[in-house]
């Protein structure tokens, strides 16, 4: 058993090391938690804009989402208006591009 457990711990440690050395957050990256107040999918389905109400400041932030995995969740209603989102985005002139856009974790 000790061997199995040691192997498991080793794998977990390896994974955590990988996570620890993952690229650091870019200087222009912004993280926020907010509720989707408006979600608009582009007609061609290749992008979407989500207006998030920042849970801290209460301000509206418009985020552009282009990754297919998240767009799929919009399309089949797994992420909808009213959902609380944890988001990391690139702040560019006139546009906030989502790098991470997921429901807040917890169960």
């Amino acid at each position, binding site marked *: *058993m000790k061997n*199995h*457990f040691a192997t*498991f711990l080793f*794998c*977990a440690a390896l*994974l955590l090391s990988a*996570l620890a050395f*993952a*690229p650091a*957050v870019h200087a222009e990256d912004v*993280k926020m*938690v907010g509720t989707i107040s408006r979600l608009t999918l582009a007609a061609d389905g290749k992008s979407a804009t989500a207006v998030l109400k920042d*849970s801290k400041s209460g301000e509206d932030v418009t985020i552009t989402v282009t990754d297919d*995995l998240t767009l*799929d969740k919009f399309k089949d*209603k*797994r992420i*909808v208006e009213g959902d609380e989102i*944890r988001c*990391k985005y690139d702040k560019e002139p006139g546009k906030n591009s989502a*790098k*991470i856009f*997921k*429901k*807040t*974790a*917890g*169960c």
Partner: protein
Amino acid sequence: MSTRARRLLSGALLLALAMPAAAHADDQALQLKVEDLTRKVNKIEEKSLGRWLEIGGDYRFRYDYLRGETAPFVDANGTFTNAGNKLQAAFFADPTGPVQNGAATGMNAAMLSGLMTFANTMKGTTTYSGAKNFLGAASTQQMLGGLNNYAVMVPAYKPKNDSLYTNRFGLDLHAKATENVTVNVRLVAYKTFGAQDDSAVTNGGGTPFFADRVGVFDGTLGHVPSNSLLDVDRAYATWSNIADQPLWISVGRRPSTNGAPSNLRLNNERPGNGGTPALLVDYAFDGMTVGYAPDIEALPGAYAKVCYGRGFESGFDKPAGNNITDTDMLGIAVIPIDTDPLRVWLQWNRGMNIFDFPVMSNTAFGNTAPSVDLGSIDWYGAGFMSTLKNIGPGSLNFFADGGMSVTHPNDHVSGQAGFEGLMTGEFFQPEAPTDKTGWAAYAGARYDYTPTRTKLGVEYNHGSKNWITFAPAADDIWTSKLGTRGDVYEAYLIQELNLKPISSRLSKAFFRLGYQYYNFDYTGSNDWVGAPVKIADINPSSPTGHGMQMLTPLKNAQDLYFTFEVKF
């Protein structure tokens, strides 16, 4: 300019100056009205139920057509009952008899008293060494010889039920209590048509087939048909975004049932951060979790969590005698990626102070309760599932999962199970405690044909001789298929109705038609008490034929099922 004209001009000028002022006053009033209305709407929105409470649930009708084939065996519990009944009858017919050579021998009373003493001593014997001593005693050997005269031989037969109907109703509540704190509740009633008990799935009146279907207990309540009471299947509070980090803690009656990848055959949503791999755990636990979902772009959806659950609460320590300990489970789950195309899970669990019998009422063994803790079990698991879109006219889902169990028995044996220990020994044949390693594999696929909303799935799982899982709450009638020591094949067809959702975005109605075939290689699937015996080796006519069994050994079983399910 005449005086008259001058007056007319002055009047017009005054009027022209006054008109914008009036219009401006109107605008201001309108603005106030809009602001007032906005405030009122916001107030109503803040108070509206929909802002903080989601209500959903499901109803399921299920029909099962069940067939099985048993191996012949000697019924251990039946033998004791038979001996007790016959000796009692003899005693009451002739308390001082039988008469030999004109004198009352008092043998009837002595034999009945001897059996009672034997049974009580047996139940009070909780160690391997104690069991060896007890069985080695001359009086015990004499009693065992006598018991043979009352042995209940059960020949091979084919149990069947042409129509088992069940109703299941679940009510789900999701409440946003405060910022970052939610409460989830699921209430479930699961009953058999025409019954308010579990006898339809526990072989009521006969010897049960499997340990997880001896009766309904805390870990299976709401997952095995029992009665129409609405039980709390889940109730837990979660605090998330702790310290503005993707960190959460959650406590309560946990979502530790119906984990991935069972969501495919059950036609449920993916479990998200909740749940545990179905191959290792399917048990309604009271417990808690600490989880962390780091924001790593290269590993979307990644999270890890530490889970703890209590399987049995032993209450206060007793001043003397055998103290039963609490049964606890600790687990670590690492999900390095969780996306549609790929979800990977790694899991380790340890079950500590594993009990011999859970608390159950009115079973074939009477009212049962833990009498001893038998040791601990480690589980290791790794698996993945994937959904590939646009494969032909639909999507392809597939998965593979592997598990390993390693038992660590202590010196304890269960007196109420004939001195069987944690995966060790047979009835009246205790075995020195040794670790046993088992393994299981589980794979399957489902194709979702989008144009007609038809889903076709196949699954296969295999469990080795010493495989033991902790999944008694699985949605299977015969026994949890993932605990089978042998092979299980399943195919199913789901037909969703093309109807517009009304109650929620997840609402749907569908039919499911499926077939399961179990082929059992060893006894004791889903039972950690006692060593597995090869089904083909059971021969009740032979003293070394492993004939005495506590549960009816099944060679194979089939379940043809049909459901109509509505999720709202």
